């Protein structure tokens, strides 16, 4: 049996008072504990790094790959964000797992791809996972797409009843993971990458809360655009992409969210240092790891 969270809740003595306030009062018509922080990621270093990587590597990557890696590392640096609420207590997740929502254009479905231990995954490994999962999902060759089809055949009343009771259990009790269908409860965060040219510019975005409490964190990246900024008294044009981070106030407050967002942006703007951090994480956690980290250059 796999338990996504540690067995002991975060002690109330270590929980800030205002988080306790939300823990006591949120739900059933109580206050909305959602906090949203929108900022910008400098896009020129991201673009430059992705181009260089694609010239030297045998795996094709895009901004989503870098974002998954950066969120994994940011969670490792800020374990106070890698938590969820169960009942009126807060529990830390065991691992820095990350989910990415990826649309498949030949179907109406969204493929949610999970990256276990995303803080230790190289871009090569992330690319392998994404392309394999997307291709299998597109061809209905994956177990996940078959599960989705089976669940869609459920009558509406049965689906509503099952979801209602399951969410009740998940919200109030520490429940182990029940196989493949339940695997996504092991991750704290859902990432949406809307940085594609087909989307309009993003001025604001409020990610929804998923049913259930397992994903209190959401990271959304918008389309990069050029912006005029002042540098040393002169107007310069820079490319930036909006990023929105949504979190639950029962887990952390605005200060901690600001720190997390700041780390995430710093990791995205320094992709080479991010690769070094990942390489260091992998060496520390698994010194005998044989997975290839194909692209590694010192900062």
């Amino acid at each position, binding site marked *: 049996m796999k338990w996504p969270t540690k067995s002991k809740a975060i002690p109330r003595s270590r929980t800030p008072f205002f988080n306790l306030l939300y823990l006591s009062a949120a739900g059933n018509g109580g206050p909305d504990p959602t906090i949203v922080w929108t900022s910008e990621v400098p896009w020129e270093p991201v673009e430059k790094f992705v181009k260089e990587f694609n010239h030297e590597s045998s795996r*094709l990557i895009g901004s989503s790959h870098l974002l998954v890696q950066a969120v994994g590392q940011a969670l490792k640096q800020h374990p106070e964000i890698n938590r969820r609420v169960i009942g009126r207590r807060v529990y830390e997740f065991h691992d820095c797992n990350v989910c990415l929502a990826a649309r498949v254009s030949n179907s109406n479905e969204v493929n949610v791809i999970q990256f276990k231990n995303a803080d230790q995954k190289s871009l090569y490994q992330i690319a392998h996972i994404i392309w394999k999962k*997307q*291709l299998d999902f*597109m061809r209905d060759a994956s177990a996940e797409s078959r599960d989705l089809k089976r669940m869609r055949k459920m009558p509406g009343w049965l689906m509503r009843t099952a979801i209602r009771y399951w969410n009740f259990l998940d919200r109030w009790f520490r429940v182990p993971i029940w196989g493949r269908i339940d695997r996504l409860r092991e991750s704290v965060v859902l990432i949406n990458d809307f940085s594609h040219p087909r989307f309009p510019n993003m001025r604001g975005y409020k990610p929804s809360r998923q049913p259930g409490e397992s994903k209190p964190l959401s990271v959304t990246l918008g389309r990069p655009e050029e912006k005029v900024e002042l540098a040393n008294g002169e107007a310069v044009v820079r490319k930036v992409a909006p990023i929105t981070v949504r979190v639950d106030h029962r887990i952390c407050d605005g200060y901690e969210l600001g720190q997390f967002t700041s780390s995430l942006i710093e990791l995205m703007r320094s992709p080479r240092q991010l690769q070094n951090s990942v390489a260091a994480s992998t060496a520390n956690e698994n010194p005998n790891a044989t997975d290839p980290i194909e692209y590694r250059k010192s900062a």
Partner: protein
Amino acid sequence: MDIENQLIDFVQTVTTDTTIDGATDLVDNNFLDSLLLMDLVIFIENETGISLNGDDITPFNFRTISNLARLIQQKSTTVYFGRFAA
């Protein structure tokens, strides 16, 4: 219409950029994102019956439409001769 021209038409339609041709660098010019990549894979499968796998998704194969067309032709030949090898 040969596969390269079909791919050019398809990419021009999806990106709404009619300047794209067989030699345009799709990767460095930021035309190729994950959505377009999946659209291309689906298009190739529907039009040619060729299934690309994860190992085919490389920067070289998807850098230009010409490279992609060459990959499809190589895979078509492999499939054709593979039938006789069995």
